[in-house]
């Protein structure tokens, strides 16, 4: 590992005006409204006092319903790609901290050791006051068995795990992100 590596460019906060550059058209709907498989994910981004973060942005990245990522590094030809499904979504947060996505539930993808991971969505969080992107994951409440054996979830404490599993609420999946304090979301170093 002695090959020359260029030094990396450091991160800085997105600041409060991110919508000027980042909210043009990469939207929060990953599928069409009338897709029969569509699920809605809603949540609030809140700070250490439980107050809403109105100037944040949440990004999601996920496999398609069959469990394939639309990316060259996912070379599993036996799992189908899906025309028009990129797997990326972006939602700003509203004045009351709410964000929302319309997507499909991803299929299972393997961990490096060959075990299957439970269905999950990878989540990035940006806001004024965050000097770098925070990374977390959202899991599904109707996947008790898969969640119990998931290689990531099963290594977390009960309290940590609880922050990553969405719950059902009014026909949608509710996934709050708490940046700090009681019930702080488990964030990952990726």
């Amino acid at each position, binding site marked *: 590992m002695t090959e020359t590596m260029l030094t990396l*460019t450091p991160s800085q906060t997105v600041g409060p005006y991110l919508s000027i550059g980042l909210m043009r058209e990469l939207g929060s709907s990953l599928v069409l409204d009338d897709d029969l498989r569509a699920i809605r994910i809603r949540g609030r981004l809140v700070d250490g006092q439980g107050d809403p973060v109105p100037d944040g942005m949440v990004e999601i990245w996920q496999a398609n319903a069959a469990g394939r990522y639309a990316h060259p590094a996912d070379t599993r030809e036996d799992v189908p790609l899906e025309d028009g499904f990129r797997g990326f979504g972006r939602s700003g947060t509203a004045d009351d901290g709410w964000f929302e996505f319309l997507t499909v539930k991803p299929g299972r*993808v393997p961990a490096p050791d060959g075990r299957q991971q439970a269905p999950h969505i990878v989540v990035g969080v940006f806001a004024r006051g965050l000097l*770098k992107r925070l990374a977390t994951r959202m899991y599904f409440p109707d996947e008790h068995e898969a969640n119990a054996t998931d290689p990531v979830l099963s290594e977390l404490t009960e309290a940590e795990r609880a922050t990553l599993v969405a719950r059902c609420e009014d026909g949608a999946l509710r996934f709050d992100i708490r940046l700090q304090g009681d019930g702080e979301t488990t964030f990952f170093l990726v």
Partner: protein
Amino acid sequence: MALRQSPYPRVRDLDRPGVDPPNDYPDYVGTRLRAPKEPLVLLPHTLSELTGPVYGNGAIGELDHDLTRQHGGEPLGERIVVSGRVLGSDGRPLRGQLIEIWQANAAGRYFHSVDTHDAPLDPNFSGGGRCLTDDDGAYRFVTVKPGAYPWPNHPNAWRPNHIHFSLFGRAFTERLVTQMYFPGDPLFPFDPIFNSIPDEAARERLVSTFDLELTTPNWALGFRFNIVLGGREATPLEEPHDD
């Protein structure tokens, strides 16, 4: 003592040692209620982290890279060209990378309802742009030099002139949002966001350089800003410690 050792150590701010700021940096007041207090969980990379969004040419408009031609007239201010290359840590150009930028106008005012700074808006400048890198990883924006502006972090606080940059990299691990600064800015010593990066050499990598080759005669000054993307594996190894 734990019954068994978790394979996923809890670590504090070792994402990319010697590169990024810590989450917790109280001099930047905005971090105080927003930075997580718990250590991060070191996640082994799976396909979910080693993949990320890929873009095609279709999404980009012909004038998206030129912030001076998005309205009926030309914006006021000092016209500049900002250009550079996007590389991986191995020196390879990153092709087809979506770069999104946003900035204040020449008077130091953002086209945004939250910005109440007493400086004029410019009807010919909204301050957002984007482009894709070419086969050499090169990109080019035309814009006006953003003004400095005050912010409420501490008494008489001013942000140095800067342009926000957002890039996706080749995978979720490489996603980067940062800010490009201008050479010789007298506000550097006083800016907690710039100084949140602990390593001086790393801070300097966010300062563009004036470039006479990019400077277009009788038209615009040129500034060069190269960007290197890579995840935690592209930084010198340090032993993670349980925290």
